[in-house]
């Protein structure tokens, strides 16, 4: 596989497309994607257990072994104003999960102060590597002997399979996979006594509430959020409480300079 590929997109009746750095191109010799191939990809991704992935499927994705998140489009099966599942799947977006050991090394001294991790928010538009950066930051912090807990709702951060994280998240890291962030944070606080909690993608009010809960308990927080810059993110109503209370001390904005990623660190 081309190491630059970030996403692979399958759309019924169209050629397979690959994308990286915001560009999308056709994979030569792939042929038009058939519904049977889409079904086979789904079967492989869920290891023939679509029923086990029902909750994530309801939210439009499944996570395959290895932490690759597969976004799904199709026809939503709605019952009582709630999406029960997605049927007749027409498009898949496979996000290739990768480890980049050392990518967060330049950030470490800005995130750690006197042996304590500062609450840090990683910001970028989709596809620029927030999750990869967070994963490596967790690994580096864990390597310092600091206890980290990951609330890995989508299974992308640590990609735990059969109880073993596929990605290196450090020797002092505990991972709770699959649980909603609010539940995961409460559980981790009660059971694992972490010094740091890492959460991927704060997008809903309940996620923001989870961050508040962790902050109230004196635990450091590392989190990611979609956005272009600090103003864009902190002006959102969902993050209003977090902004008012000044929970986050650092914002790391991920950008692109040509094909290279850049990190801009802002203090709050």
């Amino acid at each position, binding site marked *: 596989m081309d190491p630059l590929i970030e996403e692979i997109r399958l759309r019924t009746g169209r050629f397979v497309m690959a994308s990286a750095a915001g560009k999308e191109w056709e994979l030569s010799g792939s042929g038009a994607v058939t519904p049977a191939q889409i*079904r086979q990809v789904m079967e492989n991704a869920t290891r023939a257990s679509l*029923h086990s992935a029902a909750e994530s499927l309801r939210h439009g994705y499944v996570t395959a072994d290895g932490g690759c998140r597969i976004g799904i489009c199709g026809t939503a099966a709605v019952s009582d104003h709630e999406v029960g599942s997605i049927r007749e799947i027409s498009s898949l977006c496979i996000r290739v999960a990768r480890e980049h050991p050392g990518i967060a090394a330049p950030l470490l001294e800005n995130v750690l102060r006197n042996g304590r991790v500062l609450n840090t928010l990683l910001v970028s538009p989709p596809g620029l590597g927030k999750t990869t950066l967070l994963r490596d930051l967790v690994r580096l912090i864990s390597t310092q002997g600091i206890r980290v807990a990951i609330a890995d709702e989508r299974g992308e951060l640590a990609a735990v399979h059969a109880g073993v994280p596929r990605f290196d998240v450090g020797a002092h890291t505990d991972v709770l996979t699959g649980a909603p962030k609010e539940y995961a944070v409460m559980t981790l606080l009660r059971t694992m006594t972490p010094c740091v909690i890492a959460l991927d993608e704060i997008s809903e009010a309940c996620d923001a509430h989870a961050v508040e809960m962790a902050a109230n308990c004196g635990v450091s927080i590392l989190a990611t959020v979609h956005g272009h810059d600090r103003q864009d993110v902190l002006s959102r109503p969902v993050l209003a409480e977090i902004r008012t209370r000044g929970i986050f001390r650092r914002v790391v904005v991920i950008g692109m300079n040509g094909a290279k990623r850049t990190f801009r660190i802002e203090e709050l």
Partner: protein
Amino acid sequence: MEFYLKTGGTILFLLAGFLVGQRAAQEYLQHMRNIESMILCLDRMQGEIAWRLTPMEEIFRDLTAQEGPCAAFFFKISHAFSEERQESLAALWQRTACETFTPSRARDIFAQLGQSLGSFDAEQECHAIAYAVERLKTELEQAQEANRTQGVLKRRLGVAAGIGLAILFL
């Protein structure tokens, strides 16, 4: 000496007739056991999917420990699952069923179920399994009836043939 030879021969003919009858009736018993084992495994599979949303791989692995003819089927499926596989679960299930069980309507019902596994939500899968179990139960009743009539008949025919041959021998 002649008396002992005749007595021995007669006993051998009777025993051979009995065993041939038993062997002929055995296929009915085996068929019944296959269906019973299928029903038991599918019931357990339905429970695991409905209540625990257990992944298929884990269900297959657990069912290899089950006693009965289906253990071999699930062992093969489980083994194929742990390796890189090119075929779908439906194709794998169908092929393994055909390799494991002797041809019958029950085997076809069991093999067809593979089409409904792995690609649907829990509710749909449970419906498909329940439907297969219902049809297998009907097959089991017919197999029990066949065992009662045909099985007994074959055993009796075997014994009768043994007696007939023994009389001719004497």
